[in-house]
């Protein structure tokens, strides 16, 4: 099925289930990766994505076409993930080891360092309080602009900026701490 998102959404609103399925196909990567980065676990991310899409389906009537559908989808997804994180306060979820695709042109040693760094960053992100985690994921991982983040979080530019700066500082501190315990790969970087 081709066509702009808005056509597909209109078809959904007319009761066409296939159209919604198409919408899921289009945005599942975005929703799933966002949940995965927020929650840190593949299984939880899968459940969260399902729930997020169902929430979108139910709220589709209230979707405002002046926003991009992806922004709206992110808003629903991150809100749901924040709910989950709030509920699981206290219990930590083990970060799953993830095997990345090998990058072309890296020596085994560089590959190893890259992998170690990513593991550390993942751990550090996981340790952030949820509202800071959200901003790090949205800005650095999903590459959203400030104005998109404002739409997703519903916060003002000042708050978004301050919170993101604070989040980066926290992340940096956490990385330095992890680095001291580990092999200091962050300081050794050129």
């Amino acid at each position, binding site marked *: 099925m081709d066509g702009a998102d808005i056509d597909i959404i209109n078809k959904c609103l007319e009761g066409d*289930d296939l159209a*919604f*399925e198409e919408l*899921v*196909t289009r945005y*599942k*990567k975005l*929703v*799933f*990766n966002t949940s*995965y*980065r927020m929650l840190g676990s*593949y299984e939880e*991310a*899968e459940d969260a*994505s*399902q729930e997020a*899409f*169902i929430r979108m*389906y139910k709220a589709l009537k209230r979707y405002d076409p002046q926003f991009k559908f992806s922004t709206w989808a992110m808003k629903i997804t991150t809100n749901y993930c924040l709910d989950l994180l709030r509920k699981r306060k206290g219990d930590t979820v083990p970060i799953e080891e*993830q095997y*990345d*695709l090998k990058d072309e042109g890296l020596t085994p040693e560089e590959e190893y360092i890259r992998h170690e*760094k*990513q593991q550390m*960053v*993942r751990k550090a*992100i996981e340790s952030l309080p949820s509202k800071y985690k959200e901003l*790090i994921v949205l800005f*650095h*991982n999903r*590459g959203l602009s*400030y104005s998109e983040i404002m739409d997703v979080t519903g916060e003002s530019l000042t708050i978004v900026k301050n919170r993101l*700066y604070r989040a*980066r500082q926290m*992340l*940096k501190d956490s*990385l*330095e701490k992890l680095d001291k315990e580990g092999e200091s790969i*962050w*300081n050794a*970087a050129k």
Partner: protein
Amino acid sequence: MECSKISDFIMKYVDGDISEVELKMLNRHMLYCEGCSREFQILTEMSKCISELPEVEAPASLEAKVMARIKQQRTQASMLSMLMGAAGLFVFAYYMAIFAILPFFRELGTFQMMLNYGAYFLKLIGAYIMKIIVYLPITIENLLILRNILVRDYMNIMLLIAGGVMLLNLELIRFINLQQE
């Protein structure tokens, strides 16, 4: 230049929102400030690393699962609305029968009257049985209390009355015997 100002420049750099002048100032500062230079390095590395975190493939079955859940919820919702509809229909029919249909059936009068009498008698019997069940123990209890009071406090009078009654009885028996003779 203060390091806190430079920290802002670093953030701007990471945002990709730094002006040329600011960038020059930042570079110059970092030549001699090791702290800021390290902060710059970690933050930029970190930012790069987060954006390069590998994308994961969403499960292929996601669409099917989402659609199945939507269908399931819709079935539940329609079941619920069907039940609500049935309940509404029942209530409507009931009130129609009582207020709109029954008044037109005059010949139902006798039947209705009998029904009413039946209900009245049932109620009466029910009330009577209820009274017995409730009041009998209370009555017995009260009688016992009365007896206790009488026995304890009015023994003399009781004996007097008993004696009087006995005497009366004897007199009665004598009187009857005399009559027979």
